[in-house]
């Protein structure tokens, strides 16, 4: 136990910053400064926590009584997986704040407050070691995101925000019953929400099936897994750029994180039973989303569908449940955040210039702004899984790992790489190349310094994870070897 409550600080620092931006809402400049300062401080803090989390010798945890009559505790801990995800959240938080400087002119105080509040809730989800606490943070995420989409979004924002919320809450509420069910499934008198205790004594198999189904539904909606994905394209399309970045980079990850950290280890028998279903859903998602992405004309919608397809690989990797595939799936969570975040940021920058998100409104972007064009192509290639860039590493690990137990599934998923390339190249083709659309305004500045500040670190991290992902994989080794034996049926 540390004397300094590092984890709580990580969670609540952004909330404090949110409060500050609300109080400073009279002056947009101060709001921005406060938001950026908070986000940077959070990043710094997360970076400080990483070595501690990576070191197996130190245990980074907090634990305090909260609602004793129900055995609910305020329990936090950080291992390699949580640490990386928190770091990623903080990193994207900084980028999201920076991207919003130009884009958000309406009520910046509230905007940054909600943005930082999402960070708080996401960090809470990643760090909670108590099921009740996890659920609390899990549901809290929805509110600020709802406002981010609904208030600062584009033309159809209200509908998209409502859709997002209702899909998520439908999964979440059923999960609430399952959370209670998992609690009640323990012997009376010794009931607790502690994840460790729940994992140590799983419920009876027939109970597990129901509980797993409810948990899985919640996570499937959030990830999202086909066929409960249809909220995502709308939400992404309508959200402001930073909202899309956070949504794709952080919120979707909480779903995948839940699948790995909760659904599988808590209900091992049910999880083992569900593996074929997960493979079917994963492959269906990969193909369906890729094909749908190809048919989009709205750039953000295209990227949103690509997001669904990339997340489907995580489903496959988790279902395969071996050391290689699980490492790949975990790494994919981070890689997807960076790549898709980059694409959303780029589309935000471009559509701010062209005034539209339609692919038809772009064209010839490279000619008009070569630096932006180069970055765009870079992110596109990362998304297409070009080796040397981040996605390749995780996708290769995921699928090679899947192959060892399920060659058919892996082969089908490998073949999906072609589809990925088709829609990525469609995106690049429609945006970068050809002649500029007639609707484009005269003013089309190339990358501004602020934009470079956003894009360069993102590109650098993509390159870093493409060429030297070993440090990250080393951090994931602990969690992987911790999770694997929890499902003996899948782990030989």
């Amino acid at each position, binding site marked *: 136990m540390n004397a300094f409550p590092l984890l709580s600080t990580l969670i609540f620092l952004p909330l404090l910053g949110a409060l500050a931006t609300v109080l400073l809402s009279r002056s947009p400049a101060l709001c921005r400064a406060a938001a950026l300062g908070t986000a940077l401080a959070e990043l710094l803090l997360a970076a400080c926590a990483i070595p501690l989390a990576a070191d197996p010798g130190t245990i980074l945890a907090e634990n305090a009584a909260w609602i004793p009559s129900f055995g609910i505790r305020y329990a936090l801990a950080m291992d390699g997986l949580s640490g990386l995800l928190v770091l990623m959240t903080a990193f994207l938080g900084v980028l999201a704040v920076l991207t919003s400087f130009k884009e958000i002119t309406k009520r910046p105080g509230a905007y940054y407050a909600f943005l930082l509040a999402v960070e708080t809730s996401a960090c809470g989800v990643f760090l909670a070691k108590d099921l009740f606490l996890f659920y609390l943070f899990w549901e809290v995420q929805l509110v600020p995101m709802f406002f981010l989409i609904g208030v600062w979004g584009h033309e159809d924002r209200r509908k998209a925000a409502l859709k997002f919320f209702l899909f998520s809450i439908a999964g979440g509420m059923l999960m609430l019953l399952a959370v209670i069910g998992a609690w009640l499934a323990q012997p009376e008198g010794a009931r607790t929400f502690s994840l460790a205790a729940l994992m140590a004594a799983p419920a009876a198999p027939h109970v597990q099936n129901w509980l797993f189904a409810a948990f899985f539904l919640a996570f499937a909606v959030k990830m999202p897994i086909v066929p409960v994905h249809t909220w995502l394209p709308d939400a992404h399309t309508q959200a402001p750029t930073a909202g899309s970045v956070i949504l794709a980079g952080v919120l979707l990850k909480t779903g995948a994180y839940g699948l790995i950290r909760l659904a599988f280890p808590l209900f091992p028998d049910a999880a083992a039973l569900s593996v074929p279903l997960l493979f079917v859903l994963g492959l269906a998602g990969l193909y369906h989303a890729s094909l749908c992405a190809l048919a989009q004309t709205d750039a953000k919608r295209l990227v949103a569908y690509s997001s669904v397809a990339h997340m489907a690989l995580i489903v496959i990797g988790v279902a395969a449940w071996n050391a*290689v595939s699980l490492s790949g799936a975990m790494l994919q969570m981070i890689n997807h955040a960076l790549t898709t975040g980059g694409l959303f940021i780029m589309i935000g920058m471009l559509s701010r210039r062209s005034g539209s998100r339609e692919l038809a409104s772009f064209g010839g972007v490279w000619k008009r702004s070569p630096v932006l064009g180069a970055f765009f192509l870079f992110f596109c290639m990362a998304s297409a899984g070009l080796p040397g860039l981040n996605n390749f590493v995780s996708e290769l690990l995921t699928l090679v790992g899947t*192959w*060892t137990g399920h060659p058919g599934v892996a082969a089908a998923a490998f073949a999906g790489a072609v589809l990925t390339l088709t829609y990525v190249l469609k995106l690049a*083709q429609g945006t970068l190349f050809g002649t500029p659309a007639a609707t484009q305004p005269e003013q089309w500045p190339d990358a501004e310094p602020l934009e470079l500040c956003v894009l360069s670190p993102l590109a650098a991290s993509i390159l870093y994870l493409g060429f030297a992902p070993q440090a990250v*994989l080393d951090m994931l080794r602990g969690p992987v070897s911790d999770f694997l034996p929890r499902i003996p049926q899948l782990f030989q």
Partner: protein
Amino acid sequence: MQANLSLLLALPLFGALVLALLGRRLSRPMVERLACAAIIAAFIAALTALAGAWGETRLVPLFPWFSAGGFSASMDVLYDPLSGIMAVMVTFVSAIIHIHSVGYMRGDESYARYFCYLNLFVFFMLVITLADNLAFLFLGWEGVGFCSYALIGFWFADAERTLAGRKAFVMTRIGDVGFLIAMALFFATLGTLSLSGIIASVSALSVGTATALGLLLLWAAVGKSAQLPLLVWLPDAMAGPTPVSALIHAATMVTAGVYLLMRLFPVLALSQAALAAVGAVGAVTALFASFSALGQRDIKRILAWSTISQVGYMFLGIAAGDLCGGMFHLLAHAFFKSLLFMGAGCVIQALHEEHDIFRMGSRVRTAMPPVFLLFFLGALALAAVPPASGYFSKGRILYATLSHGGGLFTLYWAMGSLAAILTALYTFRLVFVAFFGDPAFPPKTWDIEPLPRFMIHVLWPLGALALLAGGLNLPGNFSGAEWLSHALRTVPGADAEFHGVSELAVSLADAGFCAVGLFLAWMLYGPRTAPGRRGPADPERFAHRMLRSGFGLDALYRKTVLTPFLALSGFMRRVVDEGAVDAAFMSQGVLWARTSMAARRLATGRTSTYLLTFLLGLAAICAVLLAKGA
């Protein structure tokens, strides 16, 4: 050694990085010098490496890339004579093409981007050449694919060109699926992706697995090397700048598939079926592409089809178990084909982007004698006119095929020989039509733009090699030393020996085929034939259309694959995703809303209605209780 190899890889990468980051700030000469210097230095590094480790096989670890749960991908170099020679060839041809490009791109604004891509390409190509780990090799494999995509669509304002790039990228990616699956299979069966590890434990593979692996690798190679059935992208790839066509789509990248099969030859050798499949692909493609080359009017497309055809020979060589022959032809082809392309580029540029050979004519020859001479040297090698390099290299492959024995390989030999006749025919059709006589069609302009001299003169080494590279592996009956075979003898699988057929007889037959082809070309297109007859036959004629369009394969794919695929994509979006899945959820909402309207109608606002609910409610409660009591 490690430093040398690191330098070899790092120099082009460094050049590319510098150009990517600072290229737009540097002056044009600075950019050009930097790009060329990086490649020339890499060439020197490759040479010293070859000299330093002559005949040895070394595994040089460079950088641990990533590993997890027993899977490991590290950036190691497997340096053996095969990769050493390949690296020298790649850097040598690249260096010449870089220098040539300085002239070729003299009028282009985007020179920094061009040279950045070009340097990056060389880096990736060297990775393919040197990589020990298949994942590392795949880095280069996909990297060259990307560079090819970016360079085909280099003039991106023209959407047609970028679409050609996209086509190339996607088609090669279709092949790459085979590579990826092969990697997974290697990991699952042998637990390693290291080439040296695979070859060391190759005996652990069952024949079935080896066949599967062989076919997967073949599929990957087919994509990259533009063989049947994935060849349709290469003719379109000619949309890129001509030096790019010379480097990527003739000398280096398209031979990467062949090189991959050579590197993993011990795996292929385990399976007769896989080898036969490789041979079938090679022989059929060689013939198919030579026919198609015969129908083209665009000078670059003729060369493109000819590249496909020549790479088919290399496949055939590998299928026959003749690694050296494959490598020999690879090298010779790299020299003469890049020469031909750059010669064609000079012609095209001098004629203001004129691609149609029927609009050229003797004026080209007279205006640019050195270009003609260089082009002619390349044509001699391509047509396998003795004693040019192509004659020996192609001959070696045909000899190996015939001596492999068996009906199938005899058939392959026959197809290869027929293709050889056609090669000579279309090559000299090109030479006669483009450089002799009057044009059958009026050219756009008669004025010929002078080219920078260095741009032409830098090609002389290639010209010399096109003519003399046969000396690399002069067969025994020409009292040659078989230098290449000797050099490659330590490469696994390169120690094959051929018996049963007289090499001399085959060589003579080859010369005969060449002569037949030349004769036909002279008769049909020679300078003595009337210009009208020399023109392309009636474009409405079916046979001509077939040849011209590469037997309609591209259109067939469009019709049977691309259109249904796009239709499926639209269907998935509109009907399945929006029309069914999303609509199912949204109709849920509508359903609830309708129910809600109905429920609200119960609240009529009339007090009597509400009072009625009291009585009805009580009655219902009583009814339930009575029903339960009874």
